């Protein structure tokens, strides 16, 4: 085949150095850009339908909004009055996710106190009626119906609540580790032949003028660590880059206006323990609804929603945002003020664009943009969406691609086929006993890996069963598994997959050892392992410091002294 000239869809806005390179030999059906929940969800769906897939992620899987959400697969209760079909589909999908990854979900019962005010009684009745309607959908996701509580019930359930209330209601939602959900989707896609490239940025998307059927597009990418170039030909390109979508579209010369998002930054504050067993809703100073939720073994305060104009690769909470949340929750649950904040995290929502409305009033719907209208047939952008509805969104996109582009009639299977490890939940005590690890370590390992936990332990040598991160805890074998089988390349990547270093010590006891293990697994010199650890420690210190309180200030000073004693300047 003669070398075909490359021409971008529209006059290229970026330097086309890549165009000088020979055409890549690799060819896939679909190239997906973005390793968040939408990208990995589509990769899995299409791979299950037998299509060949390559996925490129500029940072790490779940690096953006997917790994920094409130960690809930919720039923979309807020859409109930305007679009009940969205609530119904959200609840149904929550049920599906329980079926495919039962180990990864945990129940979070929420309390919604209704404060005494002139219209407090009426508000209470209206809220009660609203949730009565929501009860109709709860069975779809194995949720309990709501309860109506008087002030005494509420105080008994959560004595930490303050303020005069008319009463309150409970409602049931499910928590999830969003980063793990992404990783499991990616790993499952890989097990069905998909190629997933992390820390690999796309430099350009170009179109082949004459197609011989082996692909209409060339996606040129570059490994950000090794600078190695890799590219594929693809028949279809999917832009699933969330808040980065307009940036990605520009790489293919597509009009940004078609994929415009209004990036909304949301931050969360992490407290060192479960302060309560209930999620608690509260109103912030501006009337926005915010919450405190028990999540895995910590508590999380969330969330803000502010227009974001900064660098998407470096999104961080600020101390002002932290104070806004703490003040808002302390309003009904004052002990958050004396709780120890051990970190923050931040993400940017890919909200659908509109000029004018308040951040909260923007639509959380999702939308598929077919760029055929822009002269780029076979290029699709996924705009908007939520973690809770990712599977459905991925299915919609995959249906379209499979039928229209490939005439593949295989039905979607992502709601029935378990994700890796999702075919059961082993008993933690038995596992602990059999493999000589503590029941807590076993329980956490099983939470993250389901039945794969057994495989991780069976392959582990005795010393690999030692605990690397004592806070979570994470055993060494799990760190190695994250590097070998889950594409982790940095300490931060391992942390995202295992929660190593996300506990109270901020990586002081585990980051260096983790760096050492990664260096060993990846054949890097020891100094690079140290550099990976320092990078993580530094990044984590930045995210923690904005929520600094008296106790954490001591911990920070101690950590810094430790790093100085053992490493010198970081």
């Amino acid at each position, binding site marked *: 085949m003669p070398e075909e000239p490359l021409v971008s869809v529209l006059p290229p806005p970026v330097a086309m150095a890549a165009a000088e390179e020979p055409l890549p030999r690799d060819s896939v059906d679909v190239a997906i850009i973005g390793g968040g929940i939408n990208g990995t969800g589509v990769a899995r769906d299409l791979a299950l339908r037998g299509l060949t897939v390559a996925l490129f992620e500029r940072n790490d899987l779940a690096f953006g909004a997917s790994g920094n959400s409130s960690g809930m697969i919720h039923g979309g209760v807020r859409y109930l009055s305007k679009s009940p079909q969205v609530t119904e589909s959200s609840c149904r999908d929550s049920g599906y996710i329980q079926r495919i990854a039962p180990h990864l979900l945990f129940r979070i019962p929420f309390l919604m106190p209704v404060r005494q005010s002139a219209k407090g009684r009426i508000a209470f009745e209206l809220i009660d009626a609203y949730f009565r309607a929501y009860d109709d959908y709860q069975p779809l996701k194995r949720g309990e119906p709501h309860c109506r509580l008087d002030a005494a019930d509420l105080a008994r359930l959560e004595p930490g609540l*303050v303020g005069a209330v008319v009463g309150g209601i409970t409602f049931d939602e499910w928590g999830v580790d969003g980063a793990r959900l992404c990783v499991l989707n990616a790993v499952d896609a890989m097990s069905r032949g998909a190629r997933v490239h992390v820390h690999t940025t796309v430099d350009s998307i170009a179109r082949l003028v004459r197609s011989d059927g082996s692909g209409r597009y060339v996606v040129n990418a570059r490994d950000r660590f090794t600078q190695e170039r890799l590219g594929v030909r693809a028949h279809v390109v999917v832009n699933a880059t969330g808040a980065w979508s307009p940036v990605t579209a520009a790489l293919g010369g597509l009009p940004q206006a078609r994929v415009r998002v209004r990036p909304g930054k949301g931050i969360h504050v992490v407290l060192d323990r479960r302060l309560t067993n209930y999620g608690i809703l509260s109103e912030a100073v501006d009337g926005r609804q915010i919450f405190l939720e028990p999540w895995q073994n910590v508590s999380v305060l969330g969330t803000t929603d502010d227009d974001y104009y900064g660098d998407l690769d470096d999104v961080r909470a*600020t*101390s*002002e945002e932290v*104070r806004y949340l*703490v*003040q808002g929750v*302390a*309003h009904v649950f*004052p002990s958050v*003020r*004396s709780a120890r904040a051990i970190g923050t995290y931040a993400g940017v929502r890919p909200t659908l664009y509109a000029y004018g409305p308040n951040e909260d009033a923007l639509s959380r719907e999702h939308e598929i943009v077919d760029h055929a209208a822009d002269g780029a047939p076979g290029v699709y952008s996924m705009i908007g969406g939520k973690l809770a509805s990712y599977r459905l969104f991925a299915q919609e996109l995959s249906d379209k691609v499979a039928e229209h582009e490939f005439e593949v009639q295989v039905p979607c299977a992502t709601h029935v086929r378990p994700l890796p490890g999702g075919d059961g939940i082993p008993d933690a005590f038995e596992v602990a006993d059999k493999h000589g690890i503590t029941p807590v370590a076993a329980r956490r390992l099983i939470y993250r890996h389901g039945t794969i936990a057994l495989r991780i332990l069976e392959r582990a040598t*005795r*010393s690999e069963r*030692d*605990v*690397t991160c004592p806070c979570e805890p994470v055993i060494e074998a799990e760190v190695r598994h994250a590097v070998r089988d889950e594409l982790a390349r940095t300490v931060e990547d391992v942390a995202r997959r295992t929660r190593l270093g996300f506990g109270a010590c901020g990586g*002081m*006891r585990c980051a*260096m*050892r983790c760096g*050492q*293990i990664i*260096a*060993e697994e990846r054949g890097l*010199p*020891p*100094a690079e*392992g*140290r550099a990976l*650890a320092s990078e993580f420690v*530094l990044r984590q*210190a*930045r995210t923690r*410091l*904005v*929520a*600094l*309180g*008296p106790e954490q*200030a*001591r911990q*920070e*000073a*101690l950590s*810094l*002294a*430790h790093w*100085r*004693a*053992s*490493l*010198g*300047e*970081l």
Partner: protein
Amino acid sequence: MTNRVVVVGAGVAGTAAALTAARAGAQVTLIDGGTGASTLATGALDAVFWPHAPAHPAPIGRAAREVLDALGGYALPDGGARLLTTSGVARPARGHDAALLDIMPLAGSSIGVVRCERPGWDGGALARAWGESFQPFDAVVIRHVDERVLPDADFAMRHDDDDRLGWLADRLRDALTRAGARIRAIVLPPCLGIDRPKGRALSERVGVACGEAIALPGGPSGLRFERARDRALVAAVDRVPGRATSLARSDDGWRIAMGDGPAREGDAVVLATGGLIGGGVEYAPAESIVASALPPFGRPPFRLTVDAPLTLGANGRPLELPGTLFGIAPESIAWPFARDALADRVGVLADVEGRTESGLFVAGDLRADSPRAWLDVLATGVAAGAAAARASRQGTGSAAMAR
């Protein structure tokens, strides 16, 4: 003239102040509020933060050396030392806890790194990280199964027992024979005694230099300091357990109120309650002390945990009120956002001897703008202890001046 010196704080600075004042003839009471930053020390002795250490370290003062001798268990080689950290770094130091291996005199020889099942210790990886002259070799150091998960300090305590140390020496000798190589020294995970450092005892029995690598904070070195301190202080000072809550002038000196128990009186006082880590200084944004709503008043971001007429500051200037009732933005006061940050430098403003006002001295981490390195902290304790002893002899100086 009663010659009474009260030292508050039993860390490195307080111990140095108490021993120095006692040596100068003062009648010393040491108020010991429990464990602080000194117990978290790693055993590396620096005078300044080590990346900034001069190539030819300055000699240690006579009084400081006397304190070190009184403590025992520390080495201060003339040309400095070179220590290994469990983070895989070989770093310079001015001196060290005698259980640590100093590789300075071993330049060029092959050093064996014990490969054994201790948590966080990967002999192979560490040997690669420390450099070419290190070679991992298998040796049995685990005698009982619980030792695979025992914290470093508890494991180290087992080698206080002489028989156990002999057992370890036998295993290491066997391992050396098996390894067959020309190993001239052995690096072990932190394990060599709590009561006294067993580095030399083990080296003599094995026949090559043996020592530990530096552990995480909270390892054996800090506990070894506590034991050494307890022995050194027992004859020299009157030691009172408990926490001082406030410090105020009295008719003939200073009165120290205690959280529990009778107040103490002194002609001169050395306050050595530590910095942010030790607990002498606390980060206290206004919002942390109110339950809800806006705090009633603004406050500087740090406060002393003992109520005393002292001025907190940094860079020679007192702390100021921030322009917000909520509290200062932490981004502006601490690493890694700010370099040479306020949180790193904050403390009590004092002169070179730690004098704040007549008869009241501060030492150690509590002082503003000090390097917070072990030997520097020791030196400030020595200076404050000597000055306090002088002040107490000068006949209740503070009270005289107050009148």
